[in-house]
Protein backbone atom coordinates (compact mmCIF):
# COMPACT_ATOMS: atom_id res chain seq x y z
CA UNK A 1 0.00 0.00 0.00
CA UNK A 2 1.27 3.48 -0.88
CA UNK A 3 2.16 5.72 2.09
CA UNK A 4 -0.02 8.55 0.78
CA UNK A 5 -2.95 6.13 0.57
CA UNK A 6 -2.41 5.28 4.27
CA UNK A 7 -2.77 8.92 5.24
CA UNK A 8 -5.96 9.18 3.17
CA UNK A 9 -7.44 6.16 4.95
CA UNK A 10 -6.58 7.52 8.40
CA UNK A 11 -8.07 10.92 7.58
CA UNK A 12 -11.27 9.52 6.07
CA UNK A 13 -11.82 7.16 9.02
CA UNK A 14 -11.22 9.98 11.51
CA UNK A 15 -13.88 12.02 9.68
CA UNK A 16 -16.23 9.05 9.57
CA UNK A 17 -15.94 8.49 13.32
CA UNK A 18 -16.58 12.18 14.03
CA UNK A 19 -19.79 11.95 11.99
CA UNK A 20 -20.93 9.16 14.29
CA UNK A 21 -21.44 11.53 17.21
CA UNK A 22 -25.08 11.18 18.11
CA UNK A 23 -27.11 14.24 17.25
CA UNK A 24 -30.76 13.89 17.95
CA UNK A 25 -33.33 16.61 17.35
CA UNK A 26 -36.19 14.56 18.82
CA UNK A 27 -35.73 15.61 22.45
CA UNK A 28 -35.34 19.28 21.53
CA UNK A 29 -38.57 19.23 19.54
CA UNK A 30 -40.46 17.11 22.08
CA UNK A 31 -39.62 19.28 25.09
CA UNK A 32 -39.87 22.48 23.11
CA UNK A 33 -43.37 21.62 21.89
CA UNK A 34 -44.42 20.89 25.50
CA UNK A 35 -42.64 23.71 27.35
CA UNK A 36 -43.75 26.57 25.07
CA UNK A 37 -47.50 25.92 25.60
CA UNK A 38 -46.79 25.25 29.29
CA UNK A 39 -45.31 28.75 29.72
CA UNK A 40 -48.22 30.35 27.82
CA UNK A 41 -50.72 28.17 29.72
CA UNK A 42 -49.28 29.26 33.05
CA UNK A 43 -49.62 32.91 31.98
CA UNK A 44 -53.25 32.43 30.88
CA UNK A 45 -54.14 30.60 34.10
CA UNK A 46 -52.38 33.14 36.34
CA UNK A 47 -55.65 34.38 37.86
CA UNK A 48 -56.70 30.85 38.84
CA UNK A 49 -55.41 28.51 41.55
CA UNK A 50 -54.32 25.97 38.96
CA UNK A 51 -51.58 27.90 37.09
CA UNK A 52 -48.91 25.55 38.53
CA UNK A 53 -50.66 22.40 37.23
CA UNK A 54 -49.28 22.81 33.68
CA UNK A 55 -45.78 21.84 34.88
CA UNK A 56 -46.49 18.38 36.36
CA UNK A 57 -48.75 17.65 33.35
CA UNK A 58 -46.07 18.44 30.74
CA UNK A 59 -43.40 16.81 32.92
CA UNK A 60 -45.30 13.51 33.09
CA UNK A 61 -46.29 13.53 29.38
CA UNK A 62 -42.78 14.49 28.22
CA UNK A 63 -41.11 12.08 30.63
CA UNK A 64 -43.16 9.09 29.44
CA UNK A 65 -42.61 9.89 25.74
CA UNK A 66 -38.87 10.54 26.28
CA UNK A 67 -38.39 7.26 28.18
CA UNK A 68 -40.23 5.17 25.53
CA UNK A 69 -38.32 6.88 22.70
CA UNK A 70 -34.97 6.54 24.52
CA UNK A 71 -35.60 2.84 25.15
CA UNK A 72 -36.43 2.20 21.46
CA UNK A 73 -33.56 4.30 20.09
CA UNK A 74 -31.07 2.88 22.60
CA UNK A 75 -31.46 -0.49 20.88
CA UNK A 76 -30.25 1.03 17.59
CA UNK A 77 -27.05 2.58 18.98
CA UNK A 78 -24.05 0.91 17.36
CA UNK A 79 -21.17 3.21 18.19
CA UNK A 80 -20.26 5.39 21.17
CA UNK A 81 -17.70 8.14 21.37
CA UNK A 82 -16.47 10.05 24.41
CA UNK A 83 -18.62 12.96 23.17
CA UNK A 84 -21.76 10.79 23.30
CA UNK A 85 -20.96 9.82 26.88
CA UNK A 86 -20.36 13.44 27.93
CA UNK A 87 -23.66 14.50 26.29
CA UNK A 88 -25.49 11.67 28.07
CA UNK A 89 -24.15 12.79 31.44
CA UNK A 90 -24.82 16.47 30.67
CA UNK A 91 -28.50 15.91 29.78
CA UNK A 92 -28.91 13.38 32.61
CA UNK A 93 -27.58 16.02 35.01
CA UNK A 94 -29.90 18.58 33.43
CA UNK A 95 -32.90 16.27 34.02
CA UNK A 96 -32.07 16.04 37.72
CA UNK A 97 -31.44 19.80 37.98
CA UNK A 98 -34.75 20.52 36.22
CA UNK A 99 -36.64 18.31 38.67
CA UNK A 100 -34.80 19.89 41.62
CA UNK A 101 -35.37 23.49 40.40
CA UNK A 102 -39.12 22.96 39.91
CA UNK A 103 -39.51 21.23 43.28
CA UNK A 104 -37.35 23.79 45.14
CA UNK A 105 -39.16 26.72 43.51
CA UNK A 106 -42.51 25.13 44.37
CA UNK A 107 -41.60 24.60 48.02
CA UNK A 108 -40.14 28.09 48.45
CA UNK A 109 -42.75 29.84 46.28
CA UNK A 110 -40.68 31.50 43.61
CA UNK A 111 -40.93 31.15 39.82
CA UNK A 112 -38.49 28.53 38.40
CA UNK A 113 -38.33 29.93 34.83
CA UNK A 114 -34.95 31.65 35.06
CA UNK A 115 -33.30 28.58 36.64
CA UNK A 116 -34.74 26.25 34.00
CA UNK A 117 -33.64 28.55 31.16
CA UNK A 118 -30.17 28.78 32.68
CA UNK A 119 -29.64 25.04 33.12
CA UNK A 120 -31.19 24.22 29.70
CA UNK A 121 -28.89 26.86 28.22
CA UNK A 122 -25.85 25.30 29.85
CA UNK A 123 -26.70 21.80 28.55
CA UNK A 124 -27.49 23.14 25.05
CA UNK A 125 -24.27 25.17 24.99
CA UNK A 126 -22.16 22.13 25.99
CA UNK A 127 -23.95 19.96 23.39
CA UNK A 128 -23.19 22.53 20.71
CA UNK A 129 -19.51 22.62 21.66
CA UNK A 130 -19.10 18.84 21.72
CA UNK A 131 -21.05 18.15 18.53
CA UNK A 132 -19.64 21.25 16.77
CA UNK A 133 -23.20 22.25 15.88
CA UNK A 134 -23.10 26.05 16.08
CA UNK A 135 -26.90 26.64 16.32
CA UNK A 136 -26.83 24.83 19.69
CA UNK A 137 -23.99 27.07 20.91
CA UNK A 138 -26.05 30.16 19.99
CA UNK A 139 -29.17 28.49 21.39
CA UNK A 140 -27.35 28.11 24.71
CA UNK A 141 -26.40 31.80 24.63
CA UNK A 142 -30.01 32.81 23.87
CA UNK A 143 -31.30 30.66 26.75
CA UNK A 144 -28.73 32.28 29.07
CA UNK A 145 -29.88 35.75 28.01
CA UNK A 146 -33.49 34.60 28.52
CA UNK A 147 -32.55 33.59 32.08
CA UNK A 148 -31.15 37.08 32.73
CA UNK A 149 -34.29 38.75 31.32
CA UNK A 150 -36.64 36.43 33.25
CA UNK A 151 -34.63 36.60 36.46
CA UNK A 152 -33.74 40.30 36.65
CA UNK A 153 -35.61 42.42 34.14
CA UNK A 154 -39.31 41.53 33.74
CA UNK A 155 -42.02 41.40 36.41
CA UNK A 156 -42.63 37.87 37.80
CA UNK A 157 -46.01 37.64 36.06
CA UNK A 158 -44.33 37.85 32.61
CA UNK A 159 -41.55 35.38 33.36
CA UNK A 160 -43.52 32.47 31.89
CA UNK A 161 -43.87 34.34 28.57
CA UNK A 162 -40.13 35.12 28.48
CA UNK A 163 -39.61 31.44 29.25
CA UNK A 164 -41.72 30.34 26.25
CA UNK A 165 -39.97 32.81 23.95
CA UNK A 166 -36.54 31.66 25.19
CA UNK A 167 -37.42 28.00 24.60
CA UNK A 168 -38.65 28.80 21.09
CA UNK A 169 -35.56 30.79 20.08
CA UNK A 170 -32.84 28.89 21.96
CA UNK A 171 -34.17 25.36 21.94
CA UNK A 172 -36.81 24.65 19.28
CA UNK A 173 -35.29 26.63 16.40
CA UNK A 174 -31.82 24.98 16.79
CA UNK A 175 -33.69 21.64 17.12
CA UNK A 176 -35.50 22.30 13.82
CA UNK A 177 -32.17 23.22 12.18
CA UNK A 178 -30.74 19.92 13.39
CA UNK A 179 -33.83 18.11 12.06
CA UNK A 180 -33.12 19.67 8.63
CA UNK A 181 -29.51 18.44 8.79
CA UNK A 182 -30.69 14.93 9.74
CA UNK A 183 -33.23 14.88 6.90
CA UNK A 184 -30.57 16.10 4.48
CA UNK A 185 -28.34 13.19 5.53
CA UNK A 186 -31.06 10.59 4.93
Amino acid at each position, binding site marked *: *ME*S*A*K*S*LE*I*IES*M*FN*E*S*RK*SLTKNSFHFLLWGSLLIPAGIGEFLLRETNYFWAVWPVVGVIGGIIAIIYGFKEG*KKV*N*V*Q*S*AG*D*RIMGFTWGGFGFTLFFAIAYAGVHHFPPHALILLTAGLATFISGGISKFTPFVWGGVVLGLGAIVAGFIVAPVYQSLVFSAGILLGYVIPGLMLRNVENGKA
Partner: protein
Amino acid sequence: MAKLNSILHQELRLSIISFLANVEWVDFKKLVEVTEASKGNLSVQITKLQKVGYLEVRKSFKGNYPLTECCITEEGKTALETYVSELKKLLNL
Protein backbone atom coordinates in the same frame (compact mmCIF):
# COMPACT_ATOMS: atom_id res chain seq x y z
CA MET B 1 14.72 4.69 6.58
CA ALA B 2 11.64 4.39 8.79
CA LYS B 3 9.96 0.98 8.82
CA LEU B 4 6.18 0.88 8.92
CA ASN B 5 4.26 -1.44 11.22
CA SER B 6 3.27 -4.32 8.92
CA ILE B 7 0.13 -5.11 10.93
CA LEU B 8 -1.24 -1.60 10.41
CA HIS B 9 0.12 -1.14 6.89
CA GLN B 10 -2.86 -2.92 5.36
CA GLU B 11 -5.91 -1.03 4.08
CA LEU B 12 -8.69 -2.68 6.06
CA ARG B 13 -6.76 -3.08 9.33
CA LEU B 14 -5.68 0.56 9.16
CA SER B 15 -9.31 1.62 8.52
CA ILE B 16 -10.53 -0.35 11.55
CA ILE B 17 -7.90 1.03 13.93
CA SER B 18 -8.27 4.61 12.64
CA PHE B 19 -12.04 4.51 13.15
CA LEU B 20 -11.69 2.98 16.61
CA ALA B 21 -9.14 5.62 17.66
CA ASN B 22 -11.93 8.23 17.90
CA VAL B 23 -14.70 6.19 19.52
CA GLU B 24 -15.06 4.26 22.77
CA TRP B 25 -16.65 1.21 21.16
CA VAL B 26 -18.34 0.21 17.93
CA ASP B 27 -20.38 -2.82 16.96
CA PHE B 28 -19.49 -5.14 14.11
CA LYS B 29 -22.40 -3.99 11.88
CA LYS B 30 -21.27 -0.38 12.05
CA LEU B 31 -17.72 -1.39 11.13
CA VAL B 32 -19.07 -3.27 8.07
CA GLU B 33 -20.92 -0.07 7.11
CA VAL B 34 -17.99 2.35 7.48
CA THR B 35 -15.27 0.14 6.02
CA GLU B 36 -17.50 -1.29 3.23
CA ALA B 37 -15.69 -4.60 3.71
CA SER B 38 -17.25 -8.06 3.60
CA LYS B 39 -18.20 -9.57 6.96
CA GLY B 40 -15.75 -12.45 6.45
CA ASN B 41 -12.77 -10.27 5.61
CA LEU B 42 -13.57 -7.86 8.43
CA SER B 43 -13.81 -10.70 10.90
CA VAL B 44 -10.40 -12.07 9.81
CA GLN B 45 -8.72 -8.65 10.15
CA ILE B 46 -10.33 -7.99 13.54
CA THR B 47 -8.99 -11.31 14.80
CA LYS B 48 -5.47 -10.37 13.60
CA LEU B 49 -5.65 -7.00 15.39
CA GLN B 50 -6.99 -8.70 18.50
CA LYS B 51 -4.15 -11.25 18.49
CA VAL B 52 -1.49 -8.53 18.54
CA GLY B 53 -3.37 -6.72 21.33
CA TYR B 54 -4.44 -3.65 19.34
CA LEU B 55 -8.14 -4.12 19.96
CA GLU B 56 -10.50 -5.88 22.32
CA VAL B 57 -13.60 -7.76 21.28
CA ARG B 58 -16.62 -8.20 23.53
CA LYS B 59 -19.35 -10.66 22.61
CA SER B 60 -22.80 -10.47 24.14
CA PHE B 61 -26.49 -10.55 23.20
CA LYS B 62 -28.81 -7.65 22.41
CA GLY B 63 -32.30 -9.12 22.75
CA ASN B 64 -32.09 -12.42 20.89
CA TYR B 65 -29.29 -11.33 18.57
CA PRO B 66 -25.55 -11.79 19.09
CA LEU B 67 -23.64 -8.54 19.48
CA THR B 68 -19.93 -8.07 18.78
CA GLU B 69 -18.35 -4.86 20.02
CA CYS B 70 -14.78 -3.70 19.41
CA CYS B 71 -12.68 -1.10 21.18
CA ILE B 72 -9.08 0.00 20.70
CA THR B 73 -6.51 -0.78 23.43
CA GLU B 74 -3.78 1.56 24.73
CA GLU B 75 -1.31 -0.59 22.78
CA GLY B 76 -3.37 -0.04 19.63
CA LYS B 77 -3.45 3.73 20.16
CA THR B 78 0.33 3.84 20.68
CA ALA B 79 0.89 1.68 17.58
CA LEU B 80 -1.29 4.00 15.47
CA GLU B 81 0.49 7.12 16.78
CA THR B 82 3.89 5.56 16.00
CA TYR B 83 2.64 4.47 12.55
CA VAL B 84 1.45 8.01 11.75
CA SER B 85 4.71 9.62 12.86
CA GLU B 86 6.76 7.11 10.80
CA LEU B 87 4.48 7.74 7.84
CA LYS B 88 5.03 11.50 8.12
CA LYS B 89 8.79 10.97 8.18
CA LEU B 90 8.55 8.83 5.04
CA LEU B 91 6.49 11.47 3.27
CA ASN B 92 8.67 14.31 4.60
CA LEU B 93 5.66 15.96 6.25
